[in-house]
C-alpha cells in the first residue's frame, strides 16, 4: 500500500511563528492568551483571545497577490511558505510537479463584514476593489495558496468546523494512498480578528477569566469556564513515502490512521460515542491498539460540556493503559478551523524532540477526567505513535494516528 509521510511543516500561531519558537513554548508551557480590548467595546462577553502577530507580506508577495488575502490567508501563506522550505520544495519543483492542496477553513468573516460595510456606506459595489471577492469566499485559503505556489493538483477547502484541519490531513492521506497525488499541502487556518468570533461569544462559550488570561484555558480542569478563541495557520506537507525517499526528504512521521464519525445529534452537543468511534477507527486504520499509543493530543477546548464528553471516551479507551494525554489548547486557546492541523504540528514537534507538552492549568480533575493520565508538566519521553483528536459543531469528529519512522 502507498504510504503518506510528513516531510514539511510550518506554523504561525500565538505561541510562536517558527517550529523552533513553538517547540520552546510547548516545552515551557507558555501561554499565548491575552486580552483584546476592542472586543469589550464591540459587545463581547469575553475579551480573551490568542494574540497572533500580523504577518509582514510585502517582502514575499506583490500587490496583486496580497490584495486577495484575507487575514487567515496571510497566516496560511506564512505557514505554507515555511512548510515548503522545511520540506526542501522550491519553485522549480512546484513548476515541474503536480502538488495538491486540502486546507481547513470555515470562515472569512472580516472580509465579508468589511465588504458589507463599504457597500452600505458607498452604495456602490465597485468601491470594494478587486480583492474583496477572493477574500470573502470560504475557499479563500486554497484559492490563494494554489495561485501563489502554482499548485496544479487537487485544490479544495475542507470546511468541517473545528475538525477542518484534521480532516484535511485525513483526506490528503487518502489521496496519497489511492495513488491520486504524490504530494498534498494540508493544513488549517483561522482568522483572529474581533469580527470573526462575536457569534461564538454569543453562545457564552468563552472563558471570562479575564483577571488571569494565561490561566483561562484549562482543559479537563474542574473549574474550567469556557474556551478561549485563537487562530493562525498550520501547514503540513504530506508526501508519498517512496517519493519522499527518492528525493532525499527528511521524514517526520507517517500518517497511518484516519478515523471519522458524525454524531447525528443536536448541532452543538458533543458525543462521547462519536469521539470514541473516530478514535477507534483511526487506530484500526493504523493497525495499532490502545497500548501502542504513546500520547494523545486531546481536542479538549476547556468548555464544561465538550471536555466532559471527550474525557468519557478517553476514559473508556485509555484510562486503564495510563496513556499520557494533554490538550495543547491550554496554551494556544482554541485555534478552531486550524486546530486539527496545528495540533498535529505540535505533536510532531514533541515526537521529534522526545517530550510531551503539558496541559497547563489542570489543577483539579472532575468526575470524568479523574482517571486520565493528564500531563501537567513537560515530560521527556520518546514518542513512537501519537493520536490527535478534533471535534466540531454539527457533530463532525476526526482522529489521526501518526507513527515515527
Amino acid at each position: 500500500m502507498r504510504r503518506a509521510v510528513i516531510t514539511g511543516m510550518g506554523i504561525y500561531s500565538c505561541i510562536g511563528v517558527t517550529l523552533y519558537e513553538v517547540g520552546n513554548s510547548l516545552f515551557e508551557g507558555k501561554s499565548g492568551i491575552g486580552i483584546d480590548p476592542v472586543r469589550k467595546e464591540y459587545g463581547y462577553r469575553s475579551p480573551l483571545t490568542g494574540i497572533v502577530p500580523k504577518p509582514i507580506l510585502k517582502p514575499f508577495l506583490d500587490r496583486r497577490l496580497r490584495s486577495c488575502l484575507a487575514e487567515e490567508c496571510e497566516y496560511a501563506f506564512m505557514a505554507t511558505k515555511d512548510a515548503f522550505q522545511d520540506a526542501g520544495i522550491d519553485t522549480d519543483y512546484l513548476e515541474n510537479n503536480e502538488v495538491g492542496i486540502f486546507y481547513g477553513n470555515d470562515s472569512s468573516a472580516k472580509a465579508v463584514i468589511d465588504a458589507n460595510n463599504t457597500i452600505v456606506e458607498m452604495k456602490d459595489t465597485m468601491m470594494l476593489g478587486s480583492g474583496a471577492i477572493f477574500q470573502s469566499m470560504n475557499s479563500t485559503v486554497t484559492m490563494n495558496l494554489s495561485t501563489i505556489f502554482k499548485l496544479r493538483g487537487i485544490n479544495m477547502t475542507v470546511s468541517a468546523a473545528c475538525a477542518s484541519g484534521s480532516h484535511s490531513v485525513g483526506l490528503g492521506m487518502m489521496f496519497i494512498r489511492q495513488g491520486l497525488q504524490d504530494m498534498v499541502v494540508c493544513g488549517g487556518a483561522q482568522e483572529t480578528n474581533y469580527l470573526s468570533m462575536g457569534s461564538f461569544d454569543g453562545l457564552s462559550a468563552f472563558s471570562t477569566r479575564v483577571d488571569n488570561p494565561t490561566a483561562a484555558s484549562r482543559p479537563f480542569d474542574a473549574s474550567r469556564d469556557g474556551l478561549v478563541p485563537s487562530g493562525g495557520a498550520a501547514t503540513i506537507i504530506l508526501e508519498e513515502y517512496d517519493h519522499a525517499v527518492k528525493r532525499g526528504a527528511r521524514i517526520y512521521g507517517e500518517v497511518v490512521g484516519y478515523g471519522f464519525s458524525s454524531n447525528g445529534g443536536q448541532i452543538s452537543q458533543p458525543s462521547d460515542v462519536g469521539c470514541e468511534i473516530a478514535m477507534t477507527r483511526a487506530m484500526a486504520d493504523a493497525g495499532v491498539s490502545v497500548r501502542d499509543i504513546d500520547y494523545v493530543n486531546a481536542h479538549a477546548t476547556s468548555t464544561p460540556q465538550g471536555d466532559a464528553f471527550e474525557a468519557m471516551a478517553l476514559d473508556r479507551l485509555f484510562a486503564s493503559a495510563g496513556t499520557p494525554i494533554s490538550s495543547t489548547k491550554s496554551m494556544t486557546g482554541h485555534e478552531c478551523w486550524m486546530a486539527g492541523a496545528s495540533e498535529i504540528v505540535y505533536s510532531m514537534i514533541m515526537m521529534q524532540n522526545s517530550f510531551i507538552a503539558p496541559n497547563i492549568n489542570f489543577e483539579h480533575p472532575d468526575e470524568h477526567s479523574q482517571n486520565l493520565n493528564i500531563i501537567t508538566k513537560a515530560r521527556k519521553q520518546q514518542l513512537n505513535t501519537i493520536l490527535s483528536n478534533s471535534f466540531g459543531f454539527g457533530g463532525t469528529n476526526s482522529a489521526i494516528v501518526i507513527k515515527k519512522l
Partner: protein
Amino acid sequence: MKREEIIEKVNEFLVEEIEIAPELIKDDALLKDDLKIDSLDFVDIVVIVQKVFGFKIKPEDMGTVKTLGQFYDYIEEKVK
C-alpha cells in the same frame, strides 16, 4: 486642480498602491502593455480615483484611454 498636481497624484498612487516600477511611468506608456494594468488592477484604480479625485471612473469612458498621458487628460477633464 493643476495638471502638474494631477500627474503627481496619479504617479504617486500608481507607484505606491498599484506598485508599478517608477521607471515605467512615462506619458507614452501603454496602460495595458507597458504598465501591465489588467482588469483587476483597473477595479482598484477606480476605487483610488474616487478617494483621491472624488469622482467615479465610468468603464465605458476608458475605451479611448490607452496611454498614461491620455489617462492624465481624462482625469484633468473630469476634475475641471
